[in-house]
């Protein structure tokens, strides 16, 4: 196998910061969200006025959600305007047929064991970029929009309700909106499984220290194997 010949600084600080804030927020949001949908803890003893059992979970969900939104907007700014070769949207062009061409096909074939060699990328490979777009960009946008629409229901005619209330008729009512938010939340644990597997597999197969790169920012370029 090849030997370590170079270190590359791939994930700059804003990207790593976003990644970990996003990871913590997503886990917290999923846990609190599932709890709000099905509160399983035993009720406290005594009078209702003494406790905040359910409102505490909702408070955490809303507070973390706003951190999640701010973090998402920060990442969008960085993706559009940041001086970052690997953290930009630049290379991702799903509307252009050429993007779906050779590199994308090679990567899919590699994942399907149709090729013997493993293509290597410093940043995201095209399949990973597509997965991030679908799960993280589209998924987060969906959850943020539906979440804000539901948050606005607490104060009809208020700021959030006015800005995002149009989603209610679009989804055919508050209940369907809640249901869609609940159902779509499951794409995050789904993505977590696929993401962790892909990272560990690439680290083992390619030996580019991709796992630690999201902590340190560095990937290690490995010498090509002699053919």
């Amino acid at each position: 196998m090849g030997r370590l010949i170079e270190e590359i600084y791939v994930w700059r600080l804003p990207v790593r910061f976003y990644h970990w804030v996003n990871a913590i927020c997503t886990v917290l949001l999923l846990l609190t969200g599932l709890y709000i949908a099905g509160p399983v803890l035993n009720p406290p003893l005594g009078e209702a006025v003494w406790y905040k059992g359910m409102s505490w979970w909702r408070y955490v969900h809303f507070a973390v959600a706003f951190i999640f939104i701010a973090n998402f907007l920060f990442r969008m700014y960085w993706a559009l305007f940041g001086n970052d070769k690997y953290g930009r949207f630049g290379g991702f062009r799903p509307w252009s047929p050429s993007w779906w061409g050779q590199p994308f096909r090679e990567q899919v074939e590699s994942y399907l064991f149709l090729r013997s060699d493993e293509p290597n990328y410093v940043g995201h490979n095209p399949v990973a970029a597509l997965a991030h777009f679908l799960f993280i960009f589209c998924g987060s946008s969906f959850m943020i929009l539906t979440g804000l629409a539901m948050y606005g229901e607490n104060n009809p005619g208020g700021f959030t309700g006015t800005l995002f209330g149009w989603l209610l008729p679009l989804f055919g009512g508050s209940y369907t909106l809640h249901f869609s938010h609940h159902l779509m939340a499951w794409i995050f644990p789904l993505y977590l499984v696929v993401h962790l597997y892909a990272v560990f597999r690439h680290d083992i197969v390619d030996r580019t220290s991709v796992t630690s790169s999201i902590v340190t920012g560095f990937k290690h370029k490995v010498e090509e194997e002699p053919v």
Partner: protein
Amino acid sequence: MQSNQTFAELFRARGVSRRDFLKFCSLTSVYLGLSPSMVPSVVHAMENKPRTPVLWLHGQECTCCSESFIRSSHPTIEDLLFNMISLDYDDVLSAAAGHQLEAVRKNIMKEYKGKYILAVEGNISTKDDGVYCMVGGDSFLNIIRETAADCAAIIAWGACASFGCVQNADPNPSGSKPIHEVIKDKPIVKVPGCPPISEVMTGVVAHFHTFGTLPELDRFGRPKAFYNTRIHDKCYRRAFFDAGMFVRSFDDDATRKGWCLYKMGCKGPTTYNSCSKIQWNGGTSFPIGSGHPCIGCSEPNFWDRGPFYKRLAEVPFLGSDSNADRIGMIAVGAAAAGAAAHAAVTAVKKTKEEKHEKE
């Protein structure tokens, strides 16, 4: 009964005192959500404007809206209002029947062209030219098109006419549609609920009579005065929700203590209505007050958001009834299994390659 009588004249004829008349006007303006300074406008309108003619049509429905409307605990007030709107045609309540009654409808349509209100109760069957709902020898679809053509505005009474109730729940064999999907060129006020609260119904009519315009509507076309907030927001059991104190089965101690019905499938958090504010039967109670979870009857397609006693809707998935959590878990499980299989294939491939290299 003269058709050009004003509300005030009718009150007087019925022996209602001036004091009671003003009380009624104040009460109506409170229901309409108007400020106290608007009471004189209500009084003025009630004294001077001739009563608004209303044609009340019944399609595919159970008449529960009419029942709610007539069965109120304030007969002196609401029975009068019921008369006051000059209800010229109502095939359920009218004394006349058959051709005589149809003649009245045709007459009003001609005499008050562009001025009368069309109140619709029930779905409109549209499949097979609407043969699944025939009224007076014609399909309800034709009747509604004919009557709506010259009306000033339409009031959609109840869940049926507003969003569609049990008739157009899946699979909707008669192709039933709510009124706004059939008549698109007229202003429509939706007064959903199965049935709506009687004070809400009279309030909408009184608003139109007072101002000559429809009340302020929300994004779904419902009057904001009554449908602006959720049952949950004004629920007297909300403290138990916030404290995390829930009823877990209908025979537990929490039921007796009157805790929150959220876990019993209460749709209060997603249902916009006034039940927890105005309540029913003159403020006697409302479903949650009687220990039953809200079924969300004033929300679109509430029959298809079931079951009533579960918080999370069941949806068809891979040929069986499932819910969001089960679908999510299956998807995550499938992803984990896929990853494991992929890992196994990778391992086998790697081992083979390494062997090949050694050779």
